[in-house]
């Protein structure tokens, strides 16, 4: 993936670039708003990571300008501003996600990956699949190996999010934000509890484990690898 990082703090920039490069991504860097604006226009990038507090053009204004010039690249705001209204302001300016510092690198990586997914197919997907799991978004039903699984509304939402991000790591924070719209960190690990209940329900008709725990990062729904029978 080609990523542009617009960040004026040297240490943060190094930390992020090193981590992303280790994951195999190509990362360009701009240290102020004006340079960032030029390079973003050059593109094409898969994801832009923009700090809100920049010398020169401020992060919000920069993204607004990009959106006005029809640049549709997904933007992740990276910022120390974690106030109640700041996230909404970031998203209103045209950002797609918002991450406050300090952050764990795994969190940044998971979100960047989620943002950069390929654009959806021409037809809107109404059925999501992974292995023998099938979810019908219109009928709101879930089947495994042809047998119906009864899920609570929230469990359905949780599974839907995991399926949308199949094969990718989603962090606990991402789940809290997308499924429950909790934009703060509750001390209780409700995500873990709900995931384990979901797992139990998905396993009721047997079959391999679909939801994997990725240590230090989060969870990932993966279709089981078909082992060729000897």
């Amino acid at each position, binding site marked *: 993936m080609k990523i542009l990082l617009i960040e004026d703090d040297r240490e943060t920039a190094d930390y992020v670039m090193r981590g992303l490069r280790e994951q195999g991504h190509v990362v360009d860097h701009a240290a102020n708003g004006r340079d960032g604006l030029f390079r973003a226009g050059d593109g094409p990038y898969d994801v832009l990571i923009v700090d809100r507090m920049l010398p020169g053009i401020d992060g919000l204004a920069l993204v607004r300008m990009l959106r006005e010039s029809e640049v549709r690249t997904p933007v992740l705001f990276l910022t120390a501003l974690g*106030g*109640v209204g700041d996230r909404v302001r970031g998203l209103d300016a045209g950002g797609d996600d918002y991450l406050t510092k300090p952050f764990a690198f795994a969190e940044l990586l998971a979100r960047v990956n989620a943002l950069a997914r390929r654009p959806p197919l021409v037809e809107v997907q109404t059925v999501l699949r992974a292995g023998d799991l099938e979810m019908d978004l219109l009928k709101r039903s879930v089947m495994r190996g042809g047998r119906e699984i009864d899920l*609570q509304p929230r469990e359905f939402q949780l599974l839907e999010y995991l399926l949308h991000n199949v094969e990718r790591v989603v962090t606990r924070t991402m789940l809290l934000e997308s499924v*429950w719209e*909790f934009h703060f*960190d509750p001390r209780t690990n*409700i995500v873990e*509890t*709900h995931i384990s209940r979901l797992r139990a329900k998905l396993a009721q008709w047997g079959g391999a484990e679909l939801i994997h725990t990725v240590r230090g990062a989060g969870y990932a729904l993966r279709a089981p690898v078909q082992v060729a029978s000897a």
Partner: protein
Amino acid sequence: MLFTASAVILGVAVCWMTHASLTQQLEGRVRAAGGHFAELDRTEGIGGLIAHARAFGGNGPEALDYLVQSPAGRRLAGQLPMVGGRRGWLRLNADGADGPKPVLAYVQQLPDGVVIAVGDDLRRVRRADDAVLRAFALSIAGTLLLGGAGGIWLSRLFLHRVDAMSRTAEAIIDGDLSQRIPLRGTRDDLDRLADTLNRMLDRMQKLLTSVREASNNIAHDLRTPLSRLRQRLEDAREHAGSPAAQDQAVEAAKVEVDALLSTFAALLRIAEVEAGAQRAAFCRVDLTSVVATVAEAFAPSAEEEGRSLAANVASGVVVHGDRELLTQMLVNLVENALRHTPCGTAVRLSLRRQGRQAVLVVQDNGPGIPVAEQEQVLRRFHRLDRSRTTPGSGLGLSLVAAVVELHGAVLRLEDAQPGLRVRVVLASMAESAATIEEPVRSAA
């Protein structure tokens, strides 16, 4: 000034009108008398004129004055001075009983050459004029005086109150933030201004106190974990054991730092909420959905930890506020109920409408909070003695209190006998369609 000017104008107008009216009367009288006098000449001849002039002229204060002058210009009778060849309206000076008097006379020449004149005392008009003028002068003077005195008195009063305000402001600038502007209870503009300013000062004082408390807290309660962290790191370096041991030490340090960061974030959030700016972004919040979401989110975890969470949520309850903050507030209350109670505790959430209010209750049947500590428990970093060893920063209820205050709501901690009942009362917005209560139960 305005009063005086209008009094003057009024006075001048009245004077002038009176004068004109009286003069007109006088002229009318003179003319009528002149007419009669001229008639006399026709009926009784010059003799009659002379007799009349001698009989009536100058006789008494209301009397007219006459003049009969021969064609040759010799005085035949009368009190008026000679007029010579003059005709028409003249002002003359006659000799009166009490000295010279000004007279307005009408002089006409009769067909036979005799000149007659009839005149009336102008002093009467003048006396009236004087009276009116005097009256008005007095009233104008009176107006000026009263106005002046009144104006000075009013402005003194005003300045005195403005002075009180500046003195209060000076005292505050000097550092005594508890000073307030005295109110006079007159409920006029100045009083209302004073009241508004006082409320502004209340708010500023609260903000400053909050800032001061925050810095005190940071200084006092965060230094300890930071020092502990430093010791741990130093220890790890000194007693460098196996890479695995070092790894463990670094991991433990990271956990400690994360806890500190989360405390910082909570403190910042509380300070931000207390500052009140978020009120500007308030909008309609479906409180029913907030409570249902939190209940459903925490029910499984509650069960897992050996407690139960049930909820009774009225539908369609809407309030004016910030959804994220209200959610965080409720989550803090629920987590407190789950954390600071023993296994087997039942926690109940309820939301219902009561008149124009929304009443949210989080209740548990645990050990509760001793009445004596109920107020302190809302302060930052306060931990009940029995909870000191459980994880938590002691900021949960401070945030709850701050969010409640921001929303203009009321927070009450009650003894549920047994247990704690936390009641939050908010103003609810316009009615929604359904009012039937729908119980939302946990999976338990």
